[in-house]
């Protein structure tokens, strides 16, 4: 069983696409289409990585990201933001959150993704392995 990757995106097609990509590259994908119960899901499945969209109804990916990084049990899970809001090179995380204690996300990818680049980044982030699994003592 490969590393667990959780996809959070409100677009069904994005979920489907990323699920197929991850599955065919040996990962174990999970998905949810809103941030509403995301924290409980993260706690339950304990993913090795999260792919997160920004613009979603009700709650944005950014605010969920902030919640995740404030939780000492979950903050070590690497996050890739995948969004079409701004260009990858121009993503200015600080302009969205005023809380300086929150580190910027591990990576930002612009939609549409390049599959090879996407898989490469996931492998690198998971292999860097300097993050203990959730539930452990950080």
């Amino acid at each position, binding site marked *: 069983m490969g590393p667990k990757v959780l996809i959070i995106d409100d*677009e069904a097609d994005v979920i489907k696409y990323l699920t197929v990509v991850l599955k065919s590259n040996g990962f174990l994908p999970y998905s949810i289409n809103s941030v509403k119960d995301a924290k409980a899901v993260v706690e339950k499945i304990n993913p090795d990585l999260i792919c997160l969209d920004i613009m979603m*109804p009700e709650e944005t990916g950014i605010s969920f990201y902030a919640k995740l990084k404030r939780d000492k049990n979950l903050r070590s899970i690497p996050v890739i933001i995948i969004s*079409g809001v701004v260009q990858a090179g121009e993503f200015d995380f600080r302009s969205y959150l005023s809380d300086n204690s929150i580190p910027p996300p591990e990576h930002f990818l*612009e*939609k549409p993704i390049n599959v090879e680049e996407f898989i490469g980044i996931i492998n690198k982030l998971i292999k860097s392995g300097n993050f203990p699994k959730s539930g452990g003592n950080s």
Partner: protein
Amino acid sequence: MKSNNRVNPPRRLADMIYEELFHQVPFNVAVIDRNYNVVEANKNFTEYFGNWKNKKCYAVYKKLKKPCKDCPSVEVFKKGKPIVADAVGVDQHGRKTHYVGHVFPLRIKEGGRVEYALEMTHTVTETDRWQQEYQILFDRVPCYITVIGEDYRIVRANEAFRNNFGEVLGQHCYKVYKRRTTKCPNCPAAKTFRDGRVHHSTQLGMGKRGQDINYAVSTTPLMRGSDNIAHVIEISNDITALKKLEHQVIEAERLGAVGQTVAGLAHSIKNILMGLEGGKYIVSLGLNKNDKEMISEGWEMLERNFEKTTSLVKDFLSFSKGRLPQLKMIKPGFLVKEIVDLYKDIAAQSGIELRSEIDKNVKSAPLDPDGIHTCLTNLVSNAIDACLMGKQKGTEVLIKVSEGRDKLIFEVSDNGSGIDYEIKKKIFTTFFTTKGGEGTGLGLLTTRKIVQEHGGKILVDSEKGSGARFRMEFPRKRLMALYKEMK
């Protein structure tokens, strides 16, 4: 020698005239030598400054013991040219006196050095000084001033006005200001003649070289003791440069809107591309694995996203299609009520109160009912959407319609707050879609476009943690001008 034949030569006529002139001329005349001694003075001078014989000029004019620092005669001795100077002195009764002096050089030999200074002074009263100062103020003040009679003829005009509009005394103001042959409609001077009050307006006039002059004019009554207003003063500020600047700002805003449109469009397209890429990936994976189910899944995904492209293009085309607003005289409050009726239940279901405040002073206005309906719908649904983000209790959306200074104002505000709200608000103001896969992000752009087609502008006012307020302002004059044009 001829002269020896006469014992008492008669006074020459010329000498008599000069002497008489010297004493009768309405000036105080004195002659000063290079050592400040008064060597000659006329009767007027003696009467005014008192005894001058064997005295220094500074002692006579100013009762001083040493020469004045800015002595005009010293200047004349030095440069040999006449000058005019004003000074404050003391008359023979010890009263302070203002005077203006004309000082001329006197030479004994033509081309020789200046031996004497001829000083002709005349005293100036306080009233004279004030009058002079008022005249200077009137002419030099950096705005146009004219005084207009009841027949609308210009009776006075200051220098600034004459420089830009030409010599205009006695001409009709409407001809001078605007090259018209009849009185201007909404003439502020006419209003002042009627009610005796101050009126303001902005106008476009034509200068003497045919150049456009934008000016902001204020009219005020000129009454001399009686209740009758015989004249009106028009004071105008040239705002041509300001107007140009305003035009540049509008142009920059328009270009900014184009940039935002492109960014919003790019966001929608990126989402569709992601779906297309996904479909393509799944189809080719299905072909590799010979997995029919996977192929059909990918194909459906491709179809869905092609459809999304079509509807995006349609939306965009309808947005970009220029359309003149179909103006009808309607009550703005009516449009607001319509929106409240439409959204009240939807808002209530989400625990949001939708309220309206309609100012009683708001008069009917020429508006495109469908266009304004679209604008209000967009703003209200965005505000409700924003409130949903906040999740706190007691959120409300308020639609206001009021009358500003010569403009009709619609306002849609909400009191949502919270992190998500702030993030969305930030993105809102750059006109992105916030409604998942539904919207194309054109709602606010469309609103802005409709408002601009009405000659108005849309302003966003949002502070951290305090909700957002969208304000649509429609200058009444522009609405009326559009309405007339349409008719």
